[in-house]
């Protein structure tokens, strides 16, 4: 299972990087979104995958039965998802405005700030 998720993470990273090197701004942002998702999935994978073992303390016990699903990386991923959601929202607004100012969707046209 862990290997399967690792392969998925790799494919997502590859797809994201490929998209980021394409011609239009929208493809660039789609690639960024994919890379963000790949990073989140990687956190999920790297901290150990468990099936059907929630970290709940049974009655009369003090600790959840090991091994259990680790709640910390899930909290990390949630935070990361929220942050990347905000950033992608801003980036989309930025891309829209840039498209209007520059007049073209082509990434190579973004050159007036380089001398």
């Amino acid at each position: 299972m862990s290997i399967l998720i690792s392969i998925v993470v790799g494919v997502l990273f590859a797809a994201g990087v490929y998209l980021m090197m394409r011609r239009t701004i929208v493809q660039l942002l789609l690639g960024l979104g994919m890379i963000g998702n790949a990073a989140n999935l990687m956190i999920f994978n790297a901290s150990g995958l468990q099936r059907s073992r929630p970290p709940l303390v049974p009655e009369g016990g003090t600790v959840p039965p090991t091994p259990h699903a680790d709640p910390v990386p899930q909290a990390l991923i949630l935070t990361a998802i929220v942050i990347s959601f905000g950033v992608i929202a801003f980036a989309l607004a930025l891309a829209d405005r840039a498209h209007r100012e520059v007049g073209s969707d082509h990434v190579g046209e973004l050159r007036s700030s380089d001398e």
Partner: protein
Amino acid sequence: MTNLIALPIVVPLGTAAACLLAWNQPRRQRVVSLVGAFALVIIAVVLLTIVLRTGPQVLHVGGWRAPFGISLVADTIGVVLVAMTAVVGLAVVVDSLKTVGPEREAYGYHPLVHILLMGVGGAFLTGDLFNLYVWFEVLLISSFVLLSLGAERPQLEAALKYVTLNLIASSVFLCALGLMYGTLGTLNLADLAQRLANGEGRGFGIPLSMMFLVAFGVKAGLVPLHAWLPASYHTPPASVSALFAGLLTKVGVVALLKVFLLAFRFDPPMTDTVLAWMAGMTMLFGGIGAMVQNDLRRLLAFSVLNGIGAMVMGISLRSEAGTSATVLYMLHSAVATVAAFLLAGEVHRRTGHYDLRQMGGLARVAPGLSVAWFIVALALVGVPPLSGFFGKLALVRAGIQGGQGWSVGILLGSSLLVLAAFLRAWNLAFAREGEGGRPGRGVPLAGATLAAGTVAFAFLLAPLAAVCARIGFEMARPEDTVIGTLGTPDPSLKPESVR
């Protein structure tokens, strides 16, 4: 008392909230912003005196003990840099009271500046690596918006490049965090240092440290991860550029310092060599790039790159002398770089543009500005008795002691290149015959004060060097200092997430 540690985060947040409440009243926003910046300076100075007197303090946020909760650690390097942030913030706010136009103030310029200051303060004070990621994102997002506020075409283009490269860095940072949690079971910096010292996860040291190097290297602007810096720092208004150049790259450098000197202490010297090579290339890129620039702000951006290389060179030495030299240089660089950008903004206001080829004769019409600019330029290069000289002298000494003579050679050589760049700019804009600009004897208050600060640095050298030496001492002995901030963990609550 330990709750004071949270104040450098809470005070700018409160200021930003108060500015947002006064959304349609720019005059009130300016007052609130100025008061908030002053308050931050006072808090920072109070915190600094407390920590210098009683040693590092720690606040376990929410009462959750480390390493299960997030701890804010006020060690000497943290509070010194928070004080630096507060001073830079005050200078930028004072300058932007007059210079930021209403179209930017109407869309939240002042709250954004304070959110950025909050992010920087949080990044300097946090003791948890994931919390560091969160503060990185806070300051990153506010810098995205500040960069594009005003929506001129160069700004939007620069913002797209800046956003892209920094988001890649954030993703790499996230991956590194995930892998670190998977192999070592903790993200608290002190706990990490302790576990690595006990021998856990040694085999993963190099890949993890290299991932962190990439993530923080993009943020710091190390070659070859630096491309976003000269592409974006010259596009926003001068006070925003000053804020970025004075603070943002230093957060990346400090993150590198903490992670490499505290956590990855037992890796083979290969990581230090990689850092030293990247620092050397950064210094050279900065120097060579600065010499061919015609835009004044882009020239300053390349000199910022040069400074970053110098700071990371001090980190790569992995010695007490190297760390204290890095921090001393950082303090100089904050003052001098912010002054340089603020004065460049004044040049723009006098002449109407930033292109050096179209300027000339400013020395005749604006003598005060010329004197201040010349002083700041020499300070950035490292001419005695200005501030840059002491920073570079400390780095040279540490480099020779550490046996890295070639780094010292690159440092001095690139200083010559930056000197050539600044002299060319002086000649083109100030010294040669030309129509000058709007005449006037005045100099902007913030820029002039910081320029005077580069001169006063020499008189304050003794206490500054003592504080930096103390920082070097603390960083070289994490067992006694940083790990002590963990507190005593409850043995019955051992996490079993180590694989």
